[in-house]
């Protein structure tokens, strides 16, 4: 039984989970750091508790503090979201020991999958294909560098150095020639130590021209482990996904079945419970290799939800409560695309941007979903990840979904903070994206020297004129006084017409 869920996260994913809890009739507790005191997710919770401390380590990563809040508020489950403590086996263990339900897999499953090297070994044993490469267990810098150097001769170039505790592209380096190896290895170790407190880095062959295809799995305590089809997330920048879709444009039913079965085998090999994602590289040859398993809900889960009709977070809550999952046989319908809106300057090497969301007006209309944790008037700060929102569209076909995404991005207005909206919009016009022939090097190949917007002169001139008119007419002074009421069509009640046939 679960009746009150503490959401140990913030921002967009906290909002997503809190809403799912409300829909499931569960009481909720949010936790927040002082610099999140005005954030939207707090308002969506029944109770919100301020975390003491300033740094992320003292707040959202403070296991003891979060556990004591759970006890104090009577929460009987903790949902970790993604990032933060979501893949920390020690936290999952502490939560379980405190007789609180962890919304996620067992600590043992997290451990086996969380350590990328152990995961490779476990998957090999389960018969799931892994990328050619070598595990390197040395913790000591000198030993590790020596072992990496030695492994490089056997693995061959180009190769990828990956932090064993890594994720989100942190502690990862592509190495194309031997003279880059040592600097890359030291950089990867440094980043891994800073981000995860574990500098172990292993070596994998870099499979260029591959697609990143991942399989969503769900497993409950009633003996059922299923897959919910694939998502393609090949379009990445520095190993950060920016454009995700389901299904994969080049997928065949046979390949989906084979990858789905491998993903189910991977989950079963660690007695998985809840929602998880098995990531694969899909080579042009049609061969696929296990990359890693994410033992949590994923950022891009909405595209699967839109094509399968399954509410993944709701299923997580159901499974955590000990109930069987509610989904029937896999049915995929239409096509869904997600883009990640970041506060970043795409034209300036994608540097994170900060500033106020003076105007934040997301698109609406059929087939458009927005998952966000911000609203107009909020401030984008350097304290947290710069992701502002996920914009997801659904349409009956891939072409129509892409058209809908273009339309939605054109309507999306964010002023006061630089965002990557225009970059995402132009991405939708690239031939590779239109054809679905994307791979993990798409962005680097399309814009090897960085991206800059192509702006028609007439539009820029009109915008300059708008700024000049704004200044001349003093619009910035009248704007504050202007009615803040909702725009668009008037309230339905004021136009109610009782015209019966």
């Amino acid at each position, binding site marked *: 039984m679960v009746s009150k869920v503490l959401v140990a996260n913030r921002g967009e994913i906290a909002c997503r989970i809190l809403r799912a809890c409300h829909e499931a009739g569960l009481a909720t507790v949010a936790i927040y750091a002082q610099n999140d005191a005005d954030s939207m997710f707090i308002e969506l919770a029944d109770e919100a508790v301020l975390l003491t401390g300033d740094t992320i380590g003292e707040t959202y990563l403070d296991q003891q503090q979060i556990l004591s809040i759970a006890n104090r508020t009577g929460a009987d489950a903790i949902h970790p979201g993604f990032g933060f403590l979501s893949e920390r086996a020690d936290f999952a263990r502490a939560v379980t020991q405190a007789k609180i339900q962890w919304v996620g897999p067992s600590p043992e499953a997290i451990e086996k999958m969380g350590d990328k090297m152990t995961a490779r070994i476990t998957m090999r044993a389960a018969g799931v294909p892994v990328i050619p490469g070598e595990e390197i267990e040395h913790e000591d810098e000198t030993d590790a560098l020596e072992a990496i150097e030695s492994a490089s001769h056997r693995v061959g170039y180009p190769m990828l150095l990956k932090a064993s505790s890594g994720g989100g592209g942190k502690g990862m380096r592509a190495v194309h020639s031997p003279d880059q190896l040592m600097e890359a290895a030291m950089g990867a170790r440094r980043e891994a130590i800073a981000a995860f407190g574990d500098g172990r880095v292993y070596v994998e062959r870099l499979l260029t021209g591959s697609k990143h295809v991942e399989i969503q799995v769900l497993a409950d305590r009633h003996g059922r482990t299923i897959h919910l089809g694939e998502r393609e997330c090949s379009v990445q920048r520095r190993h950060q996904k920016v454009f995700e879709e389901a299904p994969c444009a080049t997928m065949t039913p046979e390949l989906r079945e084979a990858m789905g079965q491998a993903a189910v085998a991977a989950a079963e090999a660690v007695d998985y419970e809840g929602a998880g994602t098995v990531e694969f590289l899909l080579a042009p040859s049609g061969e696929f290799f296990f990359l890693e398993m994410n033992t949590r809900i994923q950022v891009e889960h909405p595209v699967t939800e839109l094509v399968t009709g399954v509410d993944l977070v709701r299923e997580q809550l159901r499974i955590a409560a000990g109930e069987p999952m509610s989904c029937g046989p896999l049915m995929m319908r239409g096509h869904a695309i997600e883009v990640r809106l970041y506060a970043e300057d795409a034209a300036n090497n994608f540097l994170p941007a900060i500033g106020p969301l003076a105007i934040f007006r997301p698109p609406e209309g059929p087939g458009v979903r927005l998952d966000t944790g911000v609203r107009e008037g909020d401030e984008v700060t350097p304290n947290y990840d710069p992701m502002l929102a996920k914009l997801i569209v659904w349409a009956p076909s891939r072409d129509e979904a892409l058209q809908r995404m273009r339309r939605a991005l054109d309507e999306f207005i964010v002023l006061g903070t630089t965002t990557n909206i225009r970059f995402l919009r132009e991405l939708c016009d690239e031939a590779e994206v239109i054809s679905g022939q994307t791979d993990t090097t798409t962005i680097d190949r399309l814009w090897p020297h960085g991206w800059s917007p192509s702006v028609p002169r*007439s539009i820029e001139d*009109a915008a*300059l004129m*708008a700024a000049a008119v704004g*200044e001349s007419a003093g619009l910035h002074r009248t*704007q504050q006084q202007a009615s803040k009421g909702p725009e668009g069509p008037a309230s339905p009640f004021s136009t109610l017409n009782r015209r019966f046939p």
Partner: protein
Amino acid sequence: MHHQFKSPEGPIEVTVARDGDAWRLGDIEATPMTDGRLRMVGPDGSVNFAHMAKVGDVWWVHHQGHTFRFERIEPGATDADDGGGLTAPMPGKVLQVLVEVGQSVAAGTTLMVLEAMKMEHRIVAASDGIVTAVHFNADDQVEQGVALLSLEDS
């Protein structure tokens, strides 16, 4: 009315003329709406709405799917120059300083490594030069826009 905005190529001068409720520039007509938007009518009669917001000295404009950021030059202000300093692109922490004062560096050399939002960012020499000053040490916190190092062209 006459206004100046900054651009990478130099100041852009814009003069708009008032015409009743509307403003004109060439054959574009713009009319402020009560909600703060501008109704813009193009030479071909096409109608589009510009959304705007002013933050500090910067006008943010969204028009036809494009977002612009125009920094207004206050009348009489002179354009301050940072003297070739290399500035922090964002707030963060200095991870590594890879050069010393007096060192000659080639264009493309990594001078400093910053960490912000858990990612590493390299500060790279844009041209060949000699390092004339290093303003921060490893582990120092830096604000956005501060000069990190100074480089003199060689």
